[in-house]
């Protein structure tokens, strides 16, 4: 009989290798369905073209609307489409190893049988998807910038503020998406909620239409809800609708939402862990 040997408790190198391995799962999944690699840029290009035509038509008889010029509107609107691509894969509720499918099919039981907490596994898995989405967004951004369709950042400080705001905004959207996913532990099926959630997120964050164009009531709603901190706040800073002097306040509010949502997520994960109900016994 041999002496059984189990893995060493986590040192930094194995942890980095583990994180890297989980990060890559999303990309490997995409490679398994190669047609997606073509579909992603094609659908994005069509969307960008249609939005460009739409806003150019809207501004054909006016120079300024809702406090924005055509160039500002195009920059905001097309970049909003690109930023929405960052978490595009996370909104697909039929990916076999997504949390929602894992809970529905009972395979989530394995998430609790590994020497990594389910929330950490989820974070690395989602981060991989977001990095993959960010690659397409960055590619689109460079093309639009080189084609002079969108405006460049407003100086080095503007770029730095935008980068910080973009990062915080993606964290807000990550935690919001996570809350919807964790809800699966209570709901068992959440595809309708996921559809509704992403509609509301796109509507109130500025993906469909830049928020300054929204009716007053919706704008008021968007101001008090976290969605606008995901996309509207960084893009308003980028196009100069929000003066750079207000950046500190905006970044602080974003950080406050990140902390609030992170605390709620942590609480829900610990409760979800006690609620793991797997079909069949």
């Amino acid at each position, binding site marked *: *009989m041999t002496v059984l040997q189990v893995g060493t408790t986590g040192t930094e190198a194995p942890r980095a290798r583990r994180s890297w391995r989980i990060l890559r799962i999303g990309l490997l999944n995409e490679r398994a369905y190669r047609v997606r690699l073509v579909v992603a840029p094609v659908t994005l290009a069509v969307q960008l073209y249609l939005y460009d035509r739409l806003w150019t038509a809207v501004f054909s008889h006016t120079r300024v609307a809702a406090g924005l010029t055509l160039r500002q509107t195009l920059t905001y609107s097309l970049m909003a489409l690109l930023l929405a691509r960052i978490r595009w894969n996370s909104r697909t509720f039929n990916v076999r190893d997504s949390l929602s499918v894992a809970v529905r099919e009972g395979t989530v039981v394995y998430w609790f*049988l590994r020497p990594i907490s389910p929330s950490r596994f989820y974070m690395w898995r989602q981060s991989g998807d977001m990095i993959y989405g960010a690659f397409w967004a960055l590619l689109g951004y460079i093309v639009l910038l080189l084609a002079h369709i969108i405006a460049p950042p407003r100086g080095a400080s503007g770029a730095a503020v935008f980068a910080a705001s973009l990062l915080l905004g993606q964290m807000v959207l990550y935690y919001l998406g996570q809350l919807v996913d964790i809800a699966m532990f209570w709901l068992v099926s959440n595809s309708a909620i996921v559809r509704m959630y992403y509609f509301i997120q796109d509507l109130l964050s500025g993906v469909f239409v830049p928020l300054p164009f929204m009716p007053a009531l919706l704008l008021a709603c968007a101001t008090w809800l976290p969605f606008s901190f995901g996309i509207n706040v960084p893009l308003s800073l980028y196009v100069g609708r929000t003066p750079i002097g207000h950046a500190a306040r905006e970044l602080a509010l974003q950080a406050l939402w990140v902390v609030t949502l992170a605390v709620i997520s942590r609480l829900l994960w610990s409760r979800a862990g006690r609620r793991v109900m*797997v079909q069949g016994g």
Partner: protein
Amino acid sequence: MSDADLAIVTRGLTKTFTVARRHEGRFAGFRSLIDPIHDRRTVVDDLTMTVEKGELVALLGPNGAGKSTSIKMLTGVLTPSAGEVFVDGRVPHRDRIANARNIGAVFGQKTQLWWDLPVRQSFAILRDIFDVPQAVYDRQLADFDAILELSDFWDTPVRHLSLGQRVRCEIAGAMLHDPAIVFLDEPTIGMDVVVKEQTRQFLRSQVEERGRTIVLTTHDMTEVARLCERVLLINHGRLMFDGTLDELKAAHGGKPIVNVTFSEPVSALEVPGTKVVSHDGIQAVLAPIGSSTPEDVVRALISRFPVVNIGVVETNLEDVMRDVYLSTLDERNSDERDGDQRAVETSTDRRPA
């Protein structure tokens, strides 16, 4: 033997779930929404058992008996409502990460592999998640491949594998990190006989050569007979039997039975030392009771009745299990009736004169 020397120890292990029950009658849906009725259901009830290191134990029971819930408590996925549980000296739900490194599990058809990736990529992900040294990983893969023949299909995406291929990969995936204790919840369900035998050979080798402890739940009694030295029988969340298969057969009518055909209908079939299991005119099934043997029954039948055909049949293990399940069901129903009767009596006693 102390708890730390045993692979598994449970004492009074209990799991109770709160389940919502729907209202009946008018506006049932609305009433259920605003004022749901909650029932408490005890799925595992006062389960006390031990498993020694290096044992291959079958955890048996009918559907809904509490087997899977017990395994989920042993793996740390579920927290018990009451009682104690130790797996290799650890409390699984309190020390989940350390416990995860020391156990492996396969839950029936549920896959832990990544559906769209080739099997070897799934294995590599598991290797890094469990932080398995490369040398151990290579040795494990070679060992598993030798019996399970995984290399024929381990570069194929999981979604393209047959059920038998996938379950072999699932079992290998559960043992890649060299766990001391493995829980297999109906792993061979739906497999063909060749793959089943291959899997059994693999499990035997893991116990005999690698010293692993395996807890197996299954409804396949051939598998139990071929693999397990010891059987733990659970029904209604309670441990009903703990012993060898032979002991189970002996305790639950494991004696052979006698099938007999008469040349003409027999009206009163009375044979000393036997129980008539069934009797339909010219055919009957009899079971020896007490010290009586099947040979005694055959001799008695031939001497008293116009026998044209007679045979002794060994009791099938499936039949034994069916009898055990039905007898435990009868006992429970009887207990519940007694309980109801006691409740009625108590209520009557309290009624004012």
